């Protein structure tokens, strides 16, 4: 059974701490036999949500750009891993711009009621949040979690776990962190094993 793992990198900084952590997670998923794909938001063309609410009537976004193409990919994935560094106590503006565009899917679910994810569907679709922060504060990710929860809830993924590492400024980067990269790799392996089990029903 093919397990599709999609990784979205929301960092404007290519191959930095967060993308490296995401790569490690995807490597783990690949080592477990999953089909992996990574999309880097900064290479896409999309605009933030305009707040026009046209989707509340039609279930479609009036802006047809790469955000729509990526939401189609998300809805076809078994695992969604979404990665962002923490900037100013939240996710990056790039990722927030993309997440705000989910409004048309939200409208299908809650206004038009043309889309429904069963409990069983949600159980078989796992979401992972991957993040790094320069600061060592324990609460540094707190502003990001509710936004990521909103993304997973709207797109039908169970918020399975976080792969997060703070204090990057002190460690001098993710490669100097004692456990983060291995933890990410292991989490990738773990999630594919679980999804396979759920798919085969064994």
């Amino acid at each position: 059974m093919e397990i599709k793992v999609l990784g979205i990198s929301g960092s404007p900084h290519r191959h930095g701490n967060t993308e490296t952590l995401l790569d490690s997670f995807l490597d783990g998923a690949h080592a477990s036999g999953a089909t992996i794909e990574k999309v880097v938001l900064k290479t896409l063309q999309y605009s933030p949500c305009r707040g026009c609410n046209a989707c509340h009537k039609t279930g479609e976004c009036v802006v047809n750009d790469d955000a729509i193409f990526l939401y189609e990919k998300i809805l076809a994935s078994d695992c969604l891993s979404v990665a962002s560094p923490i900037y100013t106590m939240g996710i990056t503006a790039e990722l927030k711009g993309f997440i705000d565009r989910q409004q048309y899917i939200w409208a299908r679910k809650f206004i038009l009621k043309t889309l429904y994810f069963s409990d069983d569907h949600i159980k078989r679709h796992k979401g992972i949040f991957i993040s790094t922060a320069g600061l060592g504060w324990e609460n540094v990710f707190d502003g990001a979690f509710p936004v990521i929860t909103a993304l997973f809830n709207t797109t039908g993924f169970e918020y399975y776990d976080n792969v997060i590492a703070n204090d990057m400024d002190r460690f001098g980067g993710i490669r100097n962190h004692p456990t983060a990269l291995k933890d990410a790799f292991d989490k990738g392996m773990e999630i594919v094993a679980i999804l396979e089990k759920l798919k085969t029903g064994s």
Partner: protein
Amino acid sequence: MPIKILAFAGSPRRHGNSEILLDWVLASMSEDRDIRMEKVVLTEADINPCRGCNACEALNKCIQRDGMDIYHDKIIEADCIVLSSPIYCMGLAAQVKALVDRAQVFRSRKYVLKLPVVPPERKGKRLGVFLSTAGQKWNYVFDAAIPSVKCFYHVIDIRDADIRYLMINGVDEKGAIEHHPTAQADAANLGKETVHELKKRLGL
């Protein structure tokens, strides 16, 4: 000496709930003849997201040339900075997050280069006002936005205790805030109180 108010309307939807709330506060402020204000509509302000390059830690300026060139200076010159944002997906609208993240240059100036953001005689005299609206009724709907807002004000030398908040939940459709029982009066009071406090601090 006029009191300078710089206001950012963060919603991509023009004249929606968060902008109406902002307009109420600004109207109340402008009743005082010492007030000079500028309202900036963020979707028209050409502010790109932060690139995370950290160049500002060495250069003390951003390497991007866009609308922020102007607003960087205006943020320093203002006595009061008003920020309004709707809540989208439990957080600040992406356009507002872009502005907030671009304040990184102030953070680098303050914490890395240890240089002043405002001249010493203006420190502790500035105020911030955060205005927000949310469609959801949940009382925790603003919680994830606030840490980013606090960071934004900290790095531009506006202390925690000097930030005022007016956040109205349960207003979704355009103009719904007009029917809110207290929002307009609260906005008017907030505007008045903020001007009063600014005048006190500036010795006017």
